[in-house]
């Protein structure tokens, strides 16, 4: 079908982003909106293969230490200035200070050079397997040097009216109501984008969001913007299409932090009992409405080097009880911290509590909001806590950080909060990141997965799927592994 040009899309954005300057703030909603305004050097297919965006082509040296990117010519910023290698160098400098994930990713980089206006060369300290996976717009957005250089970034006026190279330009933002983007007429890919406008509607209440879709006020509900309970009903509406695609890069994985340091959960058998006690199929079918997949271990199945050749933990309360008895658990109080991200998570917390109580664990739910929960987790002041984290396509980027002992640090809320410390695992992840070739990495990561699943440092729950719901007339909305966050440049309306 031939794409048609024109028309406006109304999408929901939840919660309201705190800003749109992607290099400065990197929340989910910020990425979702500014993924249209800013661009990265690469984007990734649903299989997570790199694809050109601002970089036309790239090559890797023999020793896997030098990466050379050729930039696309004729790209201009929304204000008409040309985009060049100088912008790339500036962006990397800025991101190192404002973008925590970019800084970590770039830690392996020894130096970056621009031999000419359209070439950028990265030299690594040592080979780094996942290096080609860090150039997506959310991980490394390009910033206009001419607008930001030698200004106070924090108060730069362009934070409120961001200027990028992307297919859409910022137009207006009625706080609490909507954000409006309009087509970039000078976009370098001829004919794109097809849409004239995008309205991001801000509707704080989940029920109100689904009503807004139902009554035709919005056309797109990006993943996670309505409660799961509503998905089946909305999917059945006329002219409605649902897709689970677009989460391959992030591959969100939900698990329970188990505090390995103290209390009953310091005992591996109790942790295993938790795995056996929780009915994860029920959670998937009832709470997540059949969306997603029961997790088998620390890696989501969409991530490189995933293996399901690991110990299995089916729902088996009897076994859980036996393990608890064996471990000598005597009904000590165990504090459960649900995730304050809406009704689905709350229901899940209640179901897990019930599961654990059924096998004789004495669970007390601690209610907090997101901030309070973070504080408790950061202070290691919990026994069991819900979380879900992105995996970013490669175990070296999104998996290892949760299990290596070097990532233990009080005060932060991700990265090995459980306090798991195993020298072998530390070694495996250290080797895996720099090992070549691929087969070697595969071997290392499979071994790590087996050890981890046996030890149960955390209780893996589900590979989450956040379905995107939209009117069927919206075509080509999701074309990459980054999904809605990658901009609507291919999307068009079949009127």
């Amino acid at each position: 079908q031939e794409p048609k040009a024109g028309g406006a899309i109304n999408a929901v954005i939840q919660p309201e982003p705190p800003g749109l300057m992607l290099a400065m703030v990197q929340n989910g909603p910020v990425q979702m909106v500014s993924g249209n305004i800013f661009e990265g050097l690469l984007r990734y297919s649903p299989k997570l293969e790199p694809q050109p965006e601002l970089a036309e082509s790239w090559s890797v040296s023999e020793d896997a230490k030098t990466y050379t990117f050729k930039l696309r010519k004729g790209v201009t910023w929304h204000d008409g200035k040309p985009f060049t290698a100088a912008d790339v160098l500036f962006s990397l400098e800025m991101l190192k200070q404002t973008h925590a994930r970019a800084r970590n990713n770039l830690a392996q980089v020894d130096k970056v050079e621009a031999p000419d206006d359209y070439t950028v060369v990265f030299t690594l300290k040592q080979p780094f397997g996942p290096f080609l996976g860090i150039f997506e717009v959310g991980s490394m957005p390009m910033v206009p040097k001419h607008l930001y250089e030698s200004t106070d970034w924090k108060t730069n006026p362009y934070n409120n009216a961001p200027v990028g190279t992307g297919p859409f330009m910022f137009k207006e933002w009625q706080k609490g109501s909507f954000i409006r983007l309009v087509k970039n007429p000078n976009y370098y890919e001829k004919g794109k984008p097809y849409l004239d406008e995008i309205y991001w509607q801000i509707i704080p209440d989940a029920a109100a969001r689904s009503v807004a879709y139902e009554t035709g006020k919005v056309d797109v509900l990006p993943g996670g913007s309505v409660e799961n309970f509503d998905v089946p009903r909305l999917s059945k509406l006329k002219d409605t299409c649902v897709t689970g695609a677009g989460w391959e890069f992030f591959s969100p994985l939900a698990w329970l932090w188990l505090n390995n340091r103290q209390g009953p959960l310091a005992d591996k058998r109790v942790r295993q009992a938790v795995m056996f006690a929780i009915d994860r199929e029920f959670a998937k079918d009832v709470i997540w409405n059949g969306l997603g997949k029961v997790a088998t271990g620390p890696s989501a199945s969409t991530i490189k080097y995933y293996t399901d050749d690991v110990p299995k933990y089916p729902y088996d309360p009897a076994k859980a009880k036996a393990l608890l008895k064996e471990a000598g658990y005597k009904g000590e109080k165990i504090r459960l911290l649900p995730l304050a991200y809406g009704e689905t998570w709350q229901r899940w917390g209640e179901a897990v509590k019930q599961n654990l109580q059924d096998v004789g664990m004495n669970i007390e739910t601690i209610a907090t909001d997101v901030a309070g929960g973070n504080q408790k987790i950061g202070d290691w002041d919990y026994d069991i806590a819900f979380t879900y984290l992105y995996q970013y396509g490669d175990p070296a980027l999104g998996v290892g950080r949760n299990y290596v002992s070097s990532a233990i640090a009080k005060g932060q809320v991700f990265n090995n909060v459980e306090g798991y410390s195993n020298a072998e695992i530390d070694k495996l992840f250290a080797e895996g990141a720099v090992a070549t070739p691929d087969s070697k990495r595969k071997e290392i990561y499979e071994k790590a997965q087996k050890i981890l699943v046996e030890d149960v440092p955390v209780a893996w729950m589900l590979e989450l799927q956040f379905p995107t719901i939209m009117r069927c007339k919206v075509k080509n909305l999701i074309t990459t592994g980054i999904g809605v966050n990658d901009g609507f440049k291919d999307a068009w309306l079949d009127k």
Partner: protein
Amino acid sequence: MKQFWKSMLRSPSGVIGLIILLLAISVALFGPMLFPNSPWRMVQRPFLPPFTLATVPLGTDALGRDVFAGMIFGARVSLLVGMVSTLVALVVGVPIGAMAGYFGGRVDDALMRFTEFFQTIPSFALAIVLVAILQPSIYSIVASIALVSWPPVARLVRGEVLSLRTREYVQAAVVTGQSNTWIILREILPNTLSPVIVLASLMVATAILLESSLAFLGLGDPNLISWGYMVGAGRTVIRQAWWITVFPGVAILISVLGLNLIGEGLNDALNPRLSREGR
């Protein structure tokens, strides 16, 4: 006392209110005995419509939990929160109002500024912040509701005391040499009782609404089921399962209504003018 019950029972609203309240209280007290199962337990398939199975007469919620059991256990929490927080508010508000009204002058000024201060902050907003700060639990909820609801008590009591203080029988107590404490406790406070009781009955109603609003925003005690929690939890699925929100909503409505009717009845029974005319 007999007089009081007689006039109370003469007002139809008072009678209806009393019946409703008694019903709610007995449900709260005895319901859980008849329903030993935890209301959190998943007993049936999710979203079972009401009136289909005798074991779960009001259907099940999103996790397959019994809505009827939730209603019964919820009565306990809602009524408890309503009554305890009202009591606490009275315990704070009555002495402050009494002291302000009785001693007047600077004491009055200081106490009333203090009260005003609490009244100036929008009460629901303050309650939200307090619960968030103290972390949601039945204690913090009761404390927050009490903290935002005592100022009207203090003001009412102060006003009453202010007018009672100049009554001749209070002066009589002064000239017969009784102490301030005694005068406040024996001569003044008993005579502020009627309006305070009327106000208290309305405060219980308001507190139930407040608790439900907090629970609706996700600031309820996660270990206790309440009507407000049920409405809040059911609101996202209101389209496919109306019963999860409607039944507890109606329960809130009816108990608040009952308390209001009692307030009305009390007003009739305790209003000196009305009861004097009856005499």
